[in-house]
């Protein structure tokens, strides 16, 4: 295999990894503050992408043609709407079950995910079929031998990186981030210190869901096609990535996201059997990894109290 083709695969893998990492960060954030898995995360991503798509259709209808304005509006509305949806889910479905077994929260959010997914399928006009997502970013390509770098991919990758850096700064450098970390470490002590627990939880869910919407729109812009089931697989992969990395650890989630993308790419390229088996291979490796490191590569630091 020549270097150009290899670079192409690496570039695709990095792009996938960025999306997975963004989804995984959401899972790990939620787990950090509430110790719950919000499984509807992937479907929130779908709803966010469709919200972005609707925004695009709306802008086109009122005659806004500048692609940069369109991208900005699509991102803004998708992220904003999902931030609100995420906070609502936290307030009315996840927080009421705070004392219940963890399984119940997992189930209720799984089912909510189904409701969201089916709602998109049934109630979005012709929602059962894939929709062409517009190419809003410049598609100029830079050719280096057999390796082509498309400008839109580069922009998306840099934007994704910026989001990750922004989350890192938010968590580590701001007062809100400090509060989130405090709640994640010890809810009761955080409350005693005067932190508004409910507000922080809602803010965290809003943040995670907005990031998911970002990843969804990114996915749409990259593949130029969206469908109602896109979030299910992305959600499961994001969850697996967060788990491989170790729940509650943001850097673990990012690592897990890129690792999963690497597995898929390797599965598609380097293995002897057909590339159609790439997901089978990736999930099989996830199961093996979980067997070797049952609490993820960067293990959770909390110990169980009896």
């Amino acid at each position, binding site marked *: 295999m020549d270097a150009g083709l290899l670079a192409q695969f690496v570039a695709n893998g990095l792009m996938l990894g960025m999306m997975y990492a963004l989804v995984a960060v959401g899972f790990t954030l939620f787990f950090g503050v509430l110790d719950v898995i919000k499984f509807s995360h992937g479907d929130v991503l779908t709803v966010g992408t469709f919200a972005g798509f609707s925004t695009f259709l709306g802008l086109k209808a009122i005659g806004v043609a500048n692609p940069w304005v369109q991208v900005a509006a699509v991102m803004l509305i998708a992220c904003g709407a999902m931030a609100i949806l995420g906070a609502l889910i936290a307030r009315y479905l996840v927080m009421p079950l705070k004392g219940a077994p963890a399984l119940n929260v997992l189930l209720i959010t799984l089912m909510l995910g189904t409701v969201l997914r089916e709602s998109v399928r049934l109630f979005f006009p012709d929602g059962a079929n894939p929709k062409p997502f517009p190419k809003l970013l410049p598609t100029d390509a830079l050719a280096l031998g057999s390796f082509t770098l498309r400008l839109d991919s580069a922009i998306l990758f840099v934007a994704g990186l910026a989001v990750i850096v922004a989350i890192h700064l938010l968590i580590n450098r701001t007062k809100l981030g400090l509060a989130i970390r405090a709640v994640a470490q010890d809810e009761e002590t955080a409350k005693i210190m005067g932190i508004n627990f409910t507000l922080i939880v809602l803010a965290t869910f809003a943040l995670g869901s907005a990031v998911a919407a970002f990843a969804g729109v990114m996915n749409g812009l990259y593949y130029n096609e969206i469908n109602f089931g896109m979030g*299910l697989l992305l959600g499961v992969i994001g969850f697996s990535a967060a788990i491989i990395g170790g729940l509650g650890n943001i850097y673990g989630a990012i690592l897990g996201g890129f690792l999963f993308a690497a597995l898929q790419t390797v599965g598609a390229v380097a293995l002897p059997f057909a590339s159609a088996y790439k997901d089978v291979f990736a999930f099989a490796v996830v199961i093996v990894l979980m067997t070797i490191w049952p*609490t993820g590569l960067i293990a959770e630091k909390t110990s169980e109290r009896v």
Partner: protein
Amino acid sequence: MAPVPSSISPSDTAWPAFVAIAAATLFTVVFMWAETEAHVFAVIAAGAACAWAARRFGVYARAARIFAAREQVLDWGAIAGMLMLLAAFHEEHFPLLMTATVLLYIVACLGLNIQFGYAGVLNFAAAAFFGVGGYTAAVLVRHTAIPHPIVLLIGGAMAALIGLFLVLPVLRTRGHYSAVITIAFAILFRTFLEVNDTLGGPQGLKLPALQVFGWNFNRNFEIAGIGLSFYVNYVLLALALAAVAFALTRRLERSWIGLTLDAVRLDETAAACFGVHLARWKALSFTFGNFMIGVAGAVYALMLGFIAPSNFTFGDSLIMVSIILLGGIGNPWGVVLASAIVVVLPEKLQLIQEYRFILYATMVILVLLFRPEGLLPRRLRVYFPGWSPSPK
């Protein structure tokens, strides 16, 4: 969990129990008969009104007391009710197909119940194990001359065997980490089926008729001049399987094994301190549950005569989990009731067929929020006749 009203006073007669069974059978028959949506809704409304009246006038409580004290009345009553249902629909293909499907779902969900409800082992890949059973049966029936009853058992064994590959990861991980193992497997399995050409890919496989000792299950037959639909065969087979599965589950629950599994689920640390081998019991219940799911899947595949990957999606696994939850975790009768509701309702209401996933999902969310113990909550164990855990 509500304490069991386990004592029956001499003044109690058995009639409320028989009335309850007869009424439930009658309701099911009429419900299955109803053709238009208006009729179906009318039947549901009438049934709800009767149920309310029964509760209001104490018939329900008395029937429940009798059932709790002498469960055989309910067991045999349910079987008699099923046979009456069979008699009522002996010529109709579709209601019989539905009945058999419900019974097979009961078998599969009882298996899931052992994993989920007793040992507390999460399994979000029930439909995948169902599919393992189905595909094993399909391959064996198409390519080998193994007698079909043995094929059904091999279907279950294969599901158990594939489950064994997951035992180690499932045992080593806990909680959320363990959930991801089975979810990953569910998705892996479906993707594998879709891309594997020898297993038919997305188009699936066709199966020939089930034959037991030369008896072809796919042929209509006559007894004493009365024509019977060939689905009668499958309903009887499924009923036998369901009865065996139910009896097994009940025995298991009541035995010291059930007690051990309860301990494992409720408090691992305490159970381990009392010398319970956690890994052994979890592995055992996971394997046994998968076996039951696999057998049900094998019969299901042979009954339909055709299987495809779209029968065994992650969504279907979730439906099975919903059945356990709706019915009340750990209660076999809950599984029976919830399977019937979840399988039959969308078939009768074509209007909601399209909306079934969203409907169940909403139903489970509501149950979790407002009645987390399910429709028929599991009761506390009764160790001695007349003993009640909290004096009231």
